[in-house]
């Protein structure tokens, strides 16, 4: 397993001169390996976006270290590091630089001096990977939120990054837009084996992840597979999140005396259990 990203006892405070104030990120450690999908969940203000800024070198930790591709992130290797990471942010409007879809996708390529012919080819390939190739010359204000986010993803993967970070990339979208974006990311993972770090407070979205980091008030409260994390049950609710639909239903069924064999995170499992425990006798 190749490590792509790791935090080691990282702390960061926006107000280092006021030590009594809670730090935005406090003593967080974790690592992400190649090919994984990691989700970071946590309430508003729990420090998720700060962690993203630490990964991209927009901020540097006051304690601990951030390693990208096994190198400690410093001012010197900042730009090289950034070319290995693609990022998509929350507000679809505020990250669209170009005048049209294709200009926007080309932006990062222009920055790193990719020659013209190669740029054209890469812009077209990455746009077709997110199924936006029919929109080459569209202007941003004529696109839906979901489409803008897909363009942002295309812009990120055009650089062939090792790691794609989504900072609440779906939270301002309508349900259709959200589905579009998530579907795109899932397909990309299959197609080009991307490592994904997605930050969200949507638990249904986190269910797709291989591993979940659960943040609370700047600290890592827990880390584990979705089933491990959601087994925490009421703790999630206490810290501002909720349980996935299937788990909520499981609990309610058990409360009302419906026989079930165990806890379930997905609808399929729950329905199967309902079948085997109640009908299939």
């Amino acid at each position, binding site marked *: 397993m190749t490590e792509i990203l790791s935090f080691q006892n990282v702390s960061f405070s926006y107000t280092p001169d006021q030590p009594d104030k809670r730090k935005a990120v406090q003593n967080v450690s974790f690592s992400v390996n190649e090919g994984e999908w990691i989700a970071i969940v946590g309430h508003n203000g729990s420090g998720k976006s700060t962690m993203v*800024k630490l990964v*991209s070198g*927009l901020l540097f930790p006051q304690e601990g270290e951030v390693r990208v591709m096994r190198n400690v992130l410093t001012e010197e290797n900042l*730009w090289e590091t*950034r*070319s290995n*990471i693609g*990022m998509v*942010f929350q*507000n679809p*409007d*505020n*990250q*669209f*630089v*170009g*005048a049209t879809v*294709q*200009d926007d996708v*080309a*932006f*990062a*390529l*222009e*920055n*790193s*001096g*990719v*020659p*013209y012919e190669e*740029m*054209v080819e890469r*812009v077209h390939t990455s746009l077709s990977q997110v199924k936006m190739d029919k929109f080459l010359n569209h*202007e*941003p*204000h004529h696109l839906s939120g979901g489409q803008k986010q897909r363009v942002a993803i295309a*812009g*990120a993967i055009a*650089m062939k990054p090792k790691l794609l970070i989504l900072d609440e990339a779906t939270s301002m979208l309508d349900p259709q837009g959200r589905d579009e974006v998530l579907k795109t990311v899932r397909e990309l993972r299959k197609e080009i084996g991307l490592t994904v770090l997605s930050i969200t407070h949507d638990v249904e979205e986190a269910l797709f992840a291989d591993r979940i980091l659960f943040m609370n008030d700047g600290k890592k409260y827990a880390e584990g597979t979705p089933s491990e994390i959601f087994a925490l049950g009421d703790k999630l609710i206490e810290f501002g999140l909720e349980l996935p639909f299937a788990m909520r239903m499981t609990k309610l069924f058990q409360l009302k005396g419906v026989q079930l064999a165990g806890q379930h995170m997905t609808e399929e499992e729950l329905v199967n259990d309902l079948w085997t425990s109640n009908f299939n006798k």
Partner: protein
Amino acid sequence: MMEKMIFGRYIPGDSFVHKLDPRSKLVFVFAFIIVVFLANNVMTYAFLIVFTLLVIFMSRIRLYFLLNGLKPIIFLLVFTFLIHIFFTREGDILFELGFFKIYEEGLRQGVFISIRFLVLVLMTSILTLTTSPISITDGIEVLLNPLKKLKLPVHELALMMSIALRFIPTLMDETDKIMKAQMARGSDLSAGPMKERIKAVVPLLVPLFVSAFKRAEDLATAMEVRGYRGGEGRTRYRQLEWHWQDTISLILLVAMTILLVLYRS
């Protein structure tokens, strides 16, 4: 409201003029503005008119759009004409009514200056009617490139322009939304006494500035994460292509200049 403003006056098309490279169009119009001042007699002004009509014809712009664009300046045109007529006191008297006299030179001046003004406005209008703001920006950037040596941040200015163009519709939407939200809270820019209306500007502009500032922060972050660190070492995705048509149009302009020089008095 919005759509109208975003496209501005640019009308997409595929005429000869539309297809020209923005660089040649800019050089053309800029040179034209200077060349126009060469005209000084009936013949040369006639050349100017014919030439302008030719360009209008080649741009295939519907006359409606051109004339529509003239609306705001009609007043100025008439005003200029009248001022020249009334205030020039040279040459023969053509018309007299009491102390009110029109001199030949006044009429001449009035007509000439009005024609000059009109062809200038038409020609610059054709530029903006056939070229999108973003290609104008591209054209300007490339043309100003030599000034980089004088430490003029040409690349930054061009990128700034293109980001501004990109965010105009967004901020317009935002303005509309904030305006409506404040109207729903009882503060109205378009109704009530003067003092109230001016007071209603504060609840509109403060959030607008805050929002623009936050957008700038977000966009700067996004750009930097995507590897932006100034113009150094960047390649261009948007390529400009110089065709034979561009050369021809500049030759036409030179020919026209020669004519003007030959026939001016």
